[in-house]
Each structure stands twice: as structure tokens, then as C-alpha cells.
């Protein structure tokens, strides 16, 4: 394990930065958080992530690690003897966790952001349906890997929990902005129970932004960047 100061470059609404905060917290690691401005990117960001110029970036001593899921695995592996495992130990369960984390980013995130970006009612309806479908699949995944326990990670918060959990403020904000119910206790009952449990954890309370703040931010983006005419 390499020692050294830890810095996290992020932005307050980014689920990708939030999930890194969650894992650092789970591991009991202290770090300096540096808020970046995506409209005016810092020197530090451009220096340490020249390829994508995106947050989050974890700076550990003289190392810079980019891409949120790569960062999560780095933290888990570098501090493997500290705190609880984020990824499961069993190879099959690890593969399962990796698969669903990628699924959250590829399918779920693109769907709910798609709801916000939609400029027609048809497009919006399509993205709402996609989001429901993705959440239903995640319900199935939860059923399989939780084995009746509280989290995707079993007794403790794990890889899928933070990947999906870091999106919850945005999912709730999207519900408010679009007027569509996404987290539906009838369609995804187990997932709803997980949502409520997760939101009650210290991990979530200390890292997720207020839904109201995200809602305002989302509405601003719709108008200033995505050319979406506000519905209400």
C-alpha cells in the first residue's frame, strides 16, 4: 500500500464524484475535496486528466487516477486491508458487481438524463420507459445478489450500492422536473426498500446533495444547455 495525501477533484452534483466520496468514507480515509467548475476547468484537472478533462480525478501522492469505476477499484485494492471490501471477494460475485455497475452507467444514467434532455413528449416518454426497464432489471439484480440482505453488497454497502446510490439525488430530481414516477414501489418493491435503507445510511447522508439543489441545477441545464422548454 502506498501512503500519501489524497485529493479528490469533483463537482457537487456529479454522481461519479459522489460515489468516490462514498467509498473513501466507507474506507475511513481522509482526503481533501476540491470543487471544480466544469465551465472553467482548473489547471489541476487539465493536468491530471488531459484525455477526458472530466471529474472525478483522484490524486494520491504523485498518482492521478481517472474514471470513477477505475478509481473505486483502485481505492478498494490499494487499501485492501482497511475497512470493508467494496468489491466482493468471490470471482463470480465480482464479475456480477462489475457487470451491473457498468449497466448503471451505460443504461440507467443515459436514460434518466435522456428524460431531462428530451425536447418532445415522444422522446420523453421513450426515455421514461427506458428508465423503468433499467430499474426493473436492477430490481432483479438486487434480488439475486443481496440474498435477502440489506444491500447489493450483502450486509454492507458495496460496489453496486455506491454506483447506483450515487445517482439517487438525480433520479429524484428527475422525477420532480419531469413529473414522472421513476422509483415505483409497485414496479420495483425491493429496490424501493433498498433506496430507503441506503438513504438512511451515514454514507448517503454525508455525500448526496439535496434533491432540491439538484432539481434547480437540472432545470437550469435544461434551459441553458439542452434547449428544453420547461414543462412547469
Amino acid at each position, binding site marked *: 500500500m502506498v501512503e500519501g495525501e489524497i485529493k479528490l477533484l469533483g463537482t457537487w452534483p456529479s454522481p461519479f464524484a459522489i460515489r468516490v466520496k462514498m467509498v473513501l468514507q466507507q474506507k475511513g480515509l481522509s482526503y481533501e475535496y476540491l470543487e471544480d467548475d466544469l465551465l472553467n476547468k482548473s489547471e489541476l484537472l487539465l493536468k491530471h486528466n488531459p484525455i477526458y478533462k472530466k471529474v472525478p480525478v483522484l490524486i494520491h501522492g504523485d*498518482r492521478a487516477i481517472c474514471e470513477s469505476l*477505475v478509481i473505486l*477499484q*483502485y481505492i478498494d485494492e490499494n487499501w485492501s486491508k482497511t475497512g470493508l471490501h467494496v468489491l466482493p471477494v468471490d470471482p463470480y460475485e465480482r464479475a456480477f458487481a*462489475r457487470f451491473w455497475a*457498468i449497466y448503471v452507467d451505460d443504461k440507467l444514467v443515459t436514460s434518466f438524463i435522456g428524460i431531462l434532455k428530451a425536447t418532445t413528449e415522444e422522446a420523453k416518454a421513450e426515455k421514461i420507459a427506458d428508465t423503468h426497464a433499467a430499474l426493473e432489471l436492477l430490481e432483479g439484480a438486487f434480488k439475486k445478489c443481496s440474498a435477502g440482505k440489506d444491500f447489493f453488497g450483502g450486509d454492507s454497502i458495496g460496489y453496486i450500492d455506491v454506483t447506483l446510490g450515487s445517482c439517487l439525488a438525480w433520479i429524484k430530481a428527475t422525477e420532480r422536473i419531469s413529473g414522472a414516477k421513476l422509483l415505483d414501489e409497485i414496479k420495483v418493491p425491493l429496490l424501493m426498500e433498498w433506496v430507503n435503507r441506503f438513504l438512511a445510511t451515514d454514507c448517503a447522508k454525508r455525500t448526496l446533495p439535496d434533491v432540491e439543489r439538484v432539481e434547480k441545477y437540472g432545470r437550469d441545464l435544461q434551459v441553458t444547455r439542452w434547449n428544453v422548454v420547461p414543462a412547469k
Partner: protein
Amino acid sequence: MAGSGTSDVKLLGAWASPYVVRARIALNLKEVQYEFLEEQFGTKSELLLKSNPIYKKIPVLIHDEKPVCESMIIVQYIDDVWINSGPALMPADAYDRALQRFWTVYVDDKFVPSLFGIMRSPTEEAKAEAKEQALASLQLLEEAFGKISKGKPFFGGDTIGYLDIALGSFLGWMKAFEEMNGFKLLDDTKTPLLCAWADNFCNNEVVGAVIPETAKLVELAKVMQARYKSAPPAN
């Protein structure tokens, strides 16, 4: 834990898919006996639809009847399970591992789409742009190789590893596009390190056995260009 009988491990795939080649190289390096179940181009078998209902794509590794999907997840799984067989596919140090993973994401997100953009582009202009993007990606990968390999033949050091497999599995298609279009993607003057790496990679016995022949890929590419204007052979 690790089954040695062929019935324990099955791989659903297709000869031309670079994603399937990734899984095969990993299995071969780890000396795992497996049954290769070839999917027919243009159709999806019952077993595939049942094993990968989410994406319905190859490769799918089925180990003791449990499916693992997504090529690099499969490679990591193979490395995790057959830990005492063959070389380690991932380095020991957490930061080195992070670099392998970061550049693998880069290959999949940036390099591969521009590479197949060369084949799929409807106009000469679009094709030229795809080619420029592919070349720019390879330039970045050349620099990364310089840093990561630390003077050794592979991204993985002395032996083929995770990132070697991620990128190297596309060498068959790269050579096919070079031949079809009369230009070079890997060039001695611009990407000398990657040229040497590509030779070392393709000359490896385990790799040579599964990388598809350039001539066959060229033939397939022509059929695909005529028939489809969209996705490459498989995921």
C-alpha cells in the same frame, strides 16, 4: 475450484469478433480447457439469449453453468479464478492495475469506435475523419505504452496482460482495414513502440492460434459493408 474438464467451461462466440478473441486469449494463457460454441453470423442462439438476456451479445463465458458477460469482465474473471495457472493478467500494484483499466476503457470508448468508423463511414470524408481519430488514439496509446511497459515487450511487462489483450485483439481488424484502404494505422515512424509490440503480440503462440486471418476478415468486411451500415460483428 477450477474445473479441468471441457464441460465445465464454455465460451459462446464467433471467430471474427475481437471481443471474443479477448476471452480466448485469456483462456489460452491460463491453459483452461473449454468448449467453443460458435454463433452463426446474423442469428442468436437460444443459449446466448438465455445467458445474456440484457445485451444478447457475445462473448459469454459459461463456467459451471454460470454466465459471465462483457469481454473485459470475462478476462478479469478468468484471471481471478485461474489464479495459479499461467501468468497473472493484472499487475500486482493497485496503481498499475488502475492504469491497465483506464487505458482499456479508453480503447473501448475512443479507439474502437473510430477504428470501425473507418469501415462504416458512408463518405470518403467521414472515413478520413475516422482514420484521423484512430491515428490520434494510437498516438496516445504509443505514449502510454512507453510509460506502462517500463522497457518490456508488453503493456503487462514480460508477459501478455489485461491491456495487451484489450488492444491486441483488434490487430486482426486493424490489418484488414490497412489492406482494404491502402494506409497504415501502425507506422514505424509514428508508433514504433506499438509496431514492435504488435509483432511480439501476434507472434505469441497462444495469440496466433486465435487471431483471425487478415484475408478472411477482409472478405467478411466486404460482405458487411454491402449488407449493413451499422455495428461491427459483435460486442
